[in-house]
């Protein structure tokens, strides 16, 4: 699951925000009503669904969807939730991956989990929050950190560090002066308040990111192997608990087209797509969840991110093959007037969905209360259907059934497209303009001038204005952080066991050759980890691209994925998770294809790590410097 809103869908919906759905006769659009009014027009196109997709929904349901169902399908079948354009390519990560017995959870889970000792595992993942960070840099970046931290938490891990690969437009552009301080402030504000050391990242400037800054955030967490959690809503009769912040109208821009007729244009504005983060609530949520895991109180757990309750309910039920009944009236609301589809679509932050056995409910509520976190039973797991068929998700609101769907149809069986790909027309020209043809500095003065220009360039200059806003020491296990090429943290104080992490990417290389560009990003991160003395074990990635509907972009994407998958196969380490961010595009201009690759390695004893700087020579005559490689 990702928290990346789909730009195209958002733009669509704004344009037609005033479409009214049929007559509303006061009550909600129920399943019964939907069955009785098959011809009612529905604004599926405005919600970003194609006609054939809408037809498929009607087929799945055997009737038209209710308003709430339509909202749910539009979210779950969107690019960012369904991976409909990327799925066919991402499969290579699994197919080409070397076998590994260390992988406890892989692609498809909230984050990949890698065993690094008999009883210790780590989990890590990088995710994007690009578009929200452009709209509201501070909150967008802050909630980006919040979102990836919950992914890690959902695996059963205590989050222990974050990293933040960033891309901005030109350093001297006035909008960069708005975006950059906000993004850095948001990442620091959220991460520092959670007590997560920031152990590395990137700051890169390029005009291609002017309208589409990239805010990727990586989180790594640690868990005892036997505390691994999963999202399956197993066990009919178990209780569905919503824990954390109240639900408000955050981030429901995408479904605001479903406004009821009673909303006037003024309340129309009261539909922020900006989410505000509350790191304090998240910190409490982390502590409460970890206590519940340790006490074995939860059967399944899922974070709420981009698609809110819709995603969490359908994914947990689908993962177990069970059904679920949910009473939306029990969801604690920040704004009492919310309609059911708004509750289902809300992207309010700092929430988790828990599946607990009935006799554990009291303990769960007590633990939550002790940490000052709201926890509410909102539903129940129901048995699978007869003949091994999966169960159904039914959702009621004020006594009416507003949703009755097979959860797998939303979570797993979304549309899949093999989009057309075409090599960008300008690529040949770009590639022909080779570095060899550039003028070379020939005199010492030229060399000096070139060197000075390079040192002063924003992409190479000192990054401490950024990194000084991040806490690197909290938790007391940071062994290497800025300005090192890889971050190293200690996991086990007694043995010295630790991990090294690096995130790297180069959009300019990828623009010239996405296949090699992705491989180079992987190689760089791999090297950065290896030179600390760590053994690289696993890969995560965030693929930032333009519109998948543009065959040239899709070609870049396909090539980059192929390159990364091949590179991983050659190096013998698996991709364990990641995230795709499409539509990083201003008008027809896409950003450079920017695959960001994170590599995690393990060190048996962090005291043996090799830092980047040359230490004071141990011998009077000085140490010898070698250059390895070609």
């Amino acid at each position, binding site marked *: 699951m990702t928290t990346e809103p789909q730009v195209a869908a958002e733009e669509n919906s704004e344009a037609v925000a005033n479409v009214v759905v049929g007559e509303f006769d006061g009550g909600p659009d129920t399943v019964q009503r939907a069955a009785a009014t098959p011809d009612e027009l529905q604004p599926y196109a405005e919600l970003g669904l194609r006609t054939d997709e809408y037809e498929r929904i009607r087929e799945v349901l055997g009737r038209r969807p209710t308003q709430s169902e339509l909202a749910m399908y539009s979210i779950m079948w969107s690019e960012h939730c369904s991976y409909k354009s990327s799925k066919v390519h991402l499969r290579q990560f699994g197919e080409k991956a070397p076998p590994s017995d260390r992988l406890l959870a892989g692609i498809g889970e909230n984050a990949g989990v890698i065993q690094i000792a008999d009883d210790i595992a780590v989990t890590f993942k990088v995710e994007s929050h690009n578009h929200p960070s452009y*709209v*509201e840099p501070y*909150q967008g970046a802050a909630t980006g950190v919040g979102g990836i931290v919950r992914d890690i938490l959902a695996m059963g891990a205590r989050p222990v560090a974050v990293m933040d690969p960033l891309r901005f437009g030109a350093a001297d552009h006035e909008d960069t002066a708005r975006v950059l301080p906000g993004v850095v402030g948001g990442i620091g504000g959220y991460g520092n308040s959670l007590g997560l050391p920031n152990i590395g990242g990137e700051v890169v400037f390029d005009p291609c990111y002017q309208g589409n800054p990239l805010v990727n955030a990586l989180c790594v967490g640690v868990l005892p192997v036997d505390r691994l959690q999963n999202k399956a809503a197993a066990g009919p009769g178990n209780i569905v608990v919503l824990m954390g*912040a109240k639900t*408000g*109208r*955050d981030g429901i821009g995408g479904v605001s087209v479903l406004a009821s007729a009673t909303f006037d244009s003024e309340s129309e504005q*009261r*539909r*922020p797509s*900006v*989410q*505000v*983060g*509350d790191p*304090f*609530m998240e910190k409490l949520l982390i502590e409460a969840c970890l206590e519940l895991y340790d006490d074995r109180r939860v059967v399944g757990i899922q974070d709420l991110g981009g698609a809110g309750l819709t995603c969490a309910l359908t994914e947990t039920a689908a993962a177990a093959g069970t059904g679920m009944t949910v009473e939306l009236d029990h969801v604690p609301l*920040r*704004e009492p007037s919310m309609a059911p589809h708004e509750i289902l679509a809300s992207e*309010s*932050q700092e929430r988790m969905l828990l599946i607990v056995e009935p006799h554990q409910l009291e303990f769960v509520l007590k633990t939550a209360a002790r940490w*000052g976190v709201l926890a509410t039973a909102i539903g129940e797991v129901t048995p699978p259907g007869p003949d091994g068929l999966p169960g159904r998700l039914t959702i009621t609101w004020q006594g009416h059934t507003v949703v009755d769907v097979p959860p797998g149809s939303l979570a797993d069986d979304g549309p899949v497209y093999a989009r057309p790909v075409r090599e960008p027309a300008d690529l040949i020209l770009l590639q022909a303009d080779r570095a060899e043809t550039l003028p070379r500095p020939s005199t010492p003065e030229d060399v000096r001038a070139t060197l000075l220009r390079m040192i002063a360039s924003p992409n190479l200059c000192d990054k401490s204005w950024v990194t000084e806003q991040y806490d690197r020491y909290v938790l007391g296990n940071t062994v290497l952080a800025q300005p090192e090429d890889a971050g190293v943290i200690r996991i086990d104080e007694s043995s010295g066991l630790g991990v090294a992490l690096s995130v790297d990417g180069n959009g300019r290389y990828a623009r010239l050759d996405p296949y090699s560009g992705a491989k180079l990003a992987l190689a760089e991160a791999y090297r950065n980890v290896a030179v600390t003395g760590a053994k690289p074990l696993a890969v995560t990635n965030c693929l930032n691209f333009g519109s998948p509907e543009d065959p040239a972009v899709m070609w870049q994407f396909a090539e980059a994925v192929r390159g990364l998958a091949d590179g991983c196969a050659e190096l013998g380490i698996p991709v364990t998770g990641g995230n795709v961010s499409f539509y990083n595009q201003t008008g027809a201009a896409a950003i450079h294809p920017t695959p960001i690759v994170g590599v995690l390695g393990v060190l048996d004893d962090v005291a043996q790590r090799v830092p980047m700087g040359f230490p004071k020579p141990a011998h009077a005559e000085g140490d010898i410097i070698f250059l390895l490689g070609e």
Partner: protein
Amino acid sequence: MARVVVDVMLKPEILDPQGQAVASALPRLGVDDVTSVRIGRRIEIEFAGEPDLDRAREIADKLLANPVIEDFALHIAEGDSQESQPAEAPA
């Protein structure tokens, strides 16, 4: 001396973690009848000459409030400091 006061508050539908944290601390002070706390900013702008509302509105719009998440309102206040404003001085 007269100043323009700009009050900037989060839009009502936007989560206000600050206000929420204060609200939930109140019971510990023995206060149980507060239903909500919202926290925003108060900005006092002093002009060299007459307080200029239009100017202040422009400043608020461009610099003081973040229109994505905040609303603002402004008014002219008399007196040296907040305490001596008749309308605000029950303290």
